[in-house]
Structures are given as structure tokens and as C-alpha cells.
């Protein structure tokens, strides 16, 4: 039996944990700080609704020290909690390989500070926690994983994890170089997510209005230039992803718009912040990404520094 521990068992983490939990040869653990969610999972199993109907046995803990050593880790926290979560969970993976399936870039670097072997991952499936222990799967889709260049897991480990995920119902491709998939999604997200949050427009409207559509293209072009400077070959054109999303998700409010409406911290640092940092390291100017980064951070400050009732 292979032990896998999901670090951060929110919506995306739960999709992986529950699907892997259906396999006889995998024992699934989960480390998450939300007590009610963990208690519900241990009592009734982890339940998926929507695009998947699954109830799986998952051993959930709010203390990382209660999780036994695992061969694999899947980090699925929001990117701003990566450092904290992996620092706590590191002993679980003293001899394991850990894969990020988070948004943005920079997570693998943080994980590699604490564990020996790391995988770079990108995933499209999405959902939301609808009740403790229950996650609605809204979107199905593929996942790509590969060795993280600076602290690589072996290709055998990558293939073994991809195989388990795929058999569990989360189709996953093992790649020698997973950067192209990650940067394609990064650029797509960085171009559309913050604009949704800043303007309040849905995905379809963002792409329909000339003003925002051309802004999206400007942000995409900067991201593509940074990816090129890093020697990364994108696996598809982010512009095409933008147009596709406008069709299939016209009324969708980008997750960052949902964060903005709920006054939650966003993942801007891992998205546009990542493009800006990698661009700066390689001498590629990213003025629009930098503008969007500063505006969203300013917006977050506005939520925290002003009384709600003031206006």
C-alpha cells in the first residue's frame, strides 16, 4: 500500500484525496487546519458531489505530527499558505516526493526548502467546499505533473503518482518538463483573474468588451515574453484559452472576483507577482502585470484597513 498525504484539503485537495481514496492500493491522509472539515471527513468520509459522486475513506488530521511517513505528498493550499503548511508537514515527507497542484508559480521553490524531492504540477479541475466534509466538483479536467528542476523527484515517482491519480479518476499526465503546462495556465489566470476582480465583470463580459480584451492581450504578451526568456515552451496559446473560457464560462466570476466580493486575500502574488519576479530576474519588463499586482494588493489593503460600515 502506498501512502499519500494531501496538504491543504480544501476544494482542490479534496478532489485528489477523495479520488485517490477509492483505490485499494493507496492509503490517503490529509492535513488541514479547518477542524470542522477534518472532523466530518473522519466521521463520514470525504464526499464529492457534482461532477463526481464519491465517498472515500480519508484519514484527516489538523496536526501534521499525527500523520505517518508518506511516499507522496500533494500540496493544494492556497499559494499564500504554502510556506507555513509545508514547514509543518515536512517530517511526513522526509523520504517522500511532494507535488504542488497549486495556482501560480513559486510554490515548488518553497516546498523544496523543506522536502528532498519535488514535483511541479498544474491542475484544471475545480470545486468548492459546500459543507464540512463535502466538496462539490464543478469542473473536471486534466492534471500535468513533472519533476521540479531544482529538487527533482524521479521520473518513476512522477509516473507512479500520475498512474494512481489517473486510476482514481483524476486524469494525470507525467511529463519530463511540466513547465509549459504550468506557465500556460499561469498566464491565462494572470490575465483574466485580476481583471475580473478589478472590474467586477464576468469572464464572458471581460472578453467581450474591447477595453478589457485588449488589456488581457497586453498582460498575456508580457507573460509569454517571460516564459520565452526562461526557455519554456507553452503547451497552448493562452489567448486561445481566454477565448475558449469566454464561451464555456460566460457567466463565471473568476475566483479572484469571488475573493474580492468576499474580501478574502487573493493569490495575486503567485500569479502576476510570479510573472513580475521571474521577469525581473531575466530582464523582461512587465509593467502591466506589475500594475495589476499593485492594484490588487491595494484592494486587499482597502478591505483590511477600512471599517465596513464607513460607506
Amino acid at each position, binding site marked *: 500500500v502506498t501512502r499519500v498525504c494531501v496538504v491543504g484539503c480544501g476544494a482542490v485537495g479534496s478532489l485528489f484525496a477523495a479520488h485517490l481514496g477509492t483505490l485499494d492500493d493507496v492509503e490517503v491522509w490529509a492535513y488541514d487546519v479547518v477542524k470542522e472539515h477534518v472532523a466530518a471527513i473522519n466521521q463520514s468520509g470525504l464526499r464529492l458531489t457534482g461532477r463526481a459522486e464519491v465517498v472515500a475513506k480519508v484519514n484527516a488530521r489538523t496536526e501534521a505530527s499525527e500523520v505517518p511517513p508518506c511516499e507522496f505528498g500533494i500540496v493544494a493550499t492556497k499559494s499564500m499558505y504554502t510556506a507555513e503548511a509545508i514547514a509543518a508537514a515536512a517530517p511526513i515527507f522526509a523520504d517522500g516526493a511532494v507535488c504542488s497542484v497549486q495556482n501560480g508559480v513559486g510554490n515548488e521553490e518553497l516546498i523544496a526548502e523543506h522536502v528532498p524531492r519535488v514535483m511541479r504540477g498544474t491542475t484544471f479541475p475545480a470545486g468548492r467546499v459546500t459543507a464540512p466534509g463535502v466538496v462539490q466538483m464543478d469542473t473536471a479536467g486534466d492534471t500535468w505533473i513533472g519533476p521540479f528542476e531544482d529538487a527533482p523527484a524521479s521520473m518513476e515517482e512522477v509516473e507512479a503518482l500520475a498512474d494512481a491519480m489517473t486510476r482514481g479518476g483524476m486524469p494525470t499526465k507525467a511529463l519530463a518538463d511540466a513547465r509549459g503546462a504550468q506557465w500556460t495556465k499561469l498566464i491565462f489566470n494572470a490575465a483574466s483573474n485580476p481583471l475580473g476582480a478589478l472590474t467586477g465583470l464576468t469572464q464572458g463580459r471581460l472578453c467581450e468588451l474591447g477595453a478589457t480584451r485588449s*488589456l488581457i492581450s497586453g498582460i498575456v504578451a508580457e507573460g509569454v515574453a517571460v516564459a520565452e526568456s526562461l526557455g519554456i515552451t507553452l503547451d497552448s496559446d493562452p489567448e486561445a484559452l481566454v477565448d475558449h473560457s469566454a464561451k464555456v464560462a460566460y457567466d463565471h466570476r473568476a475566483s479572484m472576483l469571488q475573493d474580492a466580493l468576499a474580501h478574502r486575500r487573493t493569490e495575486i502574488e503567485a500569479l502576476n507577482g510570479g510573472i513580475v519576479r521571474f521577469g525581473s530576474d531575466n530582464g523582461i519588463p512587465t509593467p502591466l502585470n506589475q500594475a495589476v499586482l*499593485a492594484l490588487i494588493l491595494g484592494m486587499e489593503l482597502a478591505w483590511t484597513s477600512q471599517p465596513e460600515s464607513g460607506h
Partner: protein
Amino acid sequence: MIERVCVIGAGTIGSLLAAHLASVCEVSVLTRREEHAAMLREQGLRVSGKHELRASLHATADAAELGDFDVGIFACKALDLESSAARLEGRSPSATMMTVQNGLGAEDVVARHGAWPIISAVTFMSGIRHSDAHVEYELDTATWMGPWAQTKTSYATVEELAGRIVSSGLEAEPMPDLLPAQWSKLIFNSAINTVAAMTMLPHVALFAKEGEFGDLGRLVHGLIDEGVAVAAAAGVTLHDDPWEMNVLAVARGETGHSDYAHRPSMLEDVLTQRPTEVEFITGALVREAGRLGVAVPLSTAMYRLVRAREASWQLTSPSEPVLS
């Protein structure tokens, strides 16, 4: 002699001007709404904050009821200027008109509706409108005024009106050529207003902080640099460095009152989902840049974002999200 002043539009700036000027000359106020005029006639106009006063003045929503006046001050929002100027067409032909709107192009709008000599003005005073009949005087900074070159306005009239405003208790400064000041304020306003409108932040210290990639000061500085390049291409030597204006405004806000930071008007508009003046401020700057062949990618981005935010208000709520 300037004895009769008509203030067109009694928002914050119009109310402050009308209430103060009423102590030194005869003031009439032209409002858009009759109930606003009625309230001003009944209760007068109260000023609180930096000054405490109550002015009685003539007010009407019907331009036909206005007698002749020596000076008309267009203090309405830029968005209402066209319709306000149209209401005064054919009236007080010997009057001098003054525009105090944000952005560029207000004088041209007024000139389309009459042959009045025009005074250009920019104002740095600010206030908070508490009701139709009560305005709080917040920043007691000056209004700068100059003759609009296209109408051969006499500088003596500009000086006289500035003197009237100063004797009424407000700050004003006449200058022979207002363009340097007008452009300084345009560039400052374009950067501060759009950034405030998009972040929902008042004009806080972060607007001048440039240490990290994500610090707003970098964006504000980039926007200001673009505006300065457009002014240079237009042959305008700026009266003030807009970045210094930003640094000073933020410092004043912080040292004056610990909890105080000015809310730019575009932020107020966004908070109440009213159409903003972005078309007259950043839109005007972007169009001017296009005419002069200056690249302004950040200003263009801010202009587009504010327009897109405005567009989002005209929609019914989207159906519940199906993806996350």
C-alpha cells in the same frame, strides 16, 4: 465690478464657492433639481469643517429665473457641463464664465454655448457633501485661475475675481497662463483618481511607496511619468511636479490627522456606482497622447479598467458561478 455671481451646480465645490462668496457679493445658485433649490432657499447653505458659516442666497432650478450676473462659475461635474452650458445659452451675454472642472476641455464645451470670455480654473480645495444644504470644508487649498487664451479674457477680470474669492475666505491665485497648473493637476488627478477608484483606497501613504514590485507608488509614478511626457510633447512646462504633489498630499494627510486620508472624487463615484469623470481626465490624457504620438500604456490600462468597472454596473447580476 464683480457684484453678482451665479454658481452653476451646487455639488461640493459649487456649494463651497457659493456659500463663501455670498458674504462678499450677491450669489445665485442654479441647481438641476427644484427640490435642491427649494431647500437652499428655505435653509440657506451651511458650511462646517475648516470654516463654520451659514449663507443665505438665491437658488433656482430654472435658468429663466436668473437675473443678469457679472460672473458665472460652472461648478458642476464634467459629465453635466454640456447640459448646464446649454441652459445658459443666450443669458448674461456680458458675463465672464469660469470653469473649474477636472480634466481637459471644459472651456471648449462652454464656448460652444456662448461668446462669454472664459476663465480657466483648477481647484485643489475639497469637501464632503453631507446634504443638499450642508457641505464640510475639508482641504483649504487654493483655486488657481487664468484667462483662457481662446477668448481673450482680460487678466484684470481674473485678478478681480480671485480677489473676491480670497476676501470671501477661500484661497485663490490668479496666473497669466494656467496651462502649466492645469496640466500639473490633470496628471496628478489622472494617476491618483484612477488608482483610488480601482483599489477603493483613499489617497494613503502607499500611493507614494515604491520599495517593492507590488507597491502602488511604482504604478502612480509610472502613470505620472507618462503624463509628464505628454505635457512635454504638448509644449507645456509644468507648474508643479505631479509626483511631488503626490508625496506632499500623502504626507499632509498623514501628519494632519492620523485617521485622515482624502477620498478622490472618482473613488466616491465608484463607491456609489455613479458614472466617473475618467473620460475627461484619463481619457483626455490618453487621447492627447495619441494625438502627440506619446505611448501611455499604463494610463491606457487604468482608463480601460475604470470604464470596464463602470460597464459592470449596467448589468444585472450574473447567474451564480458554476466554476471556481
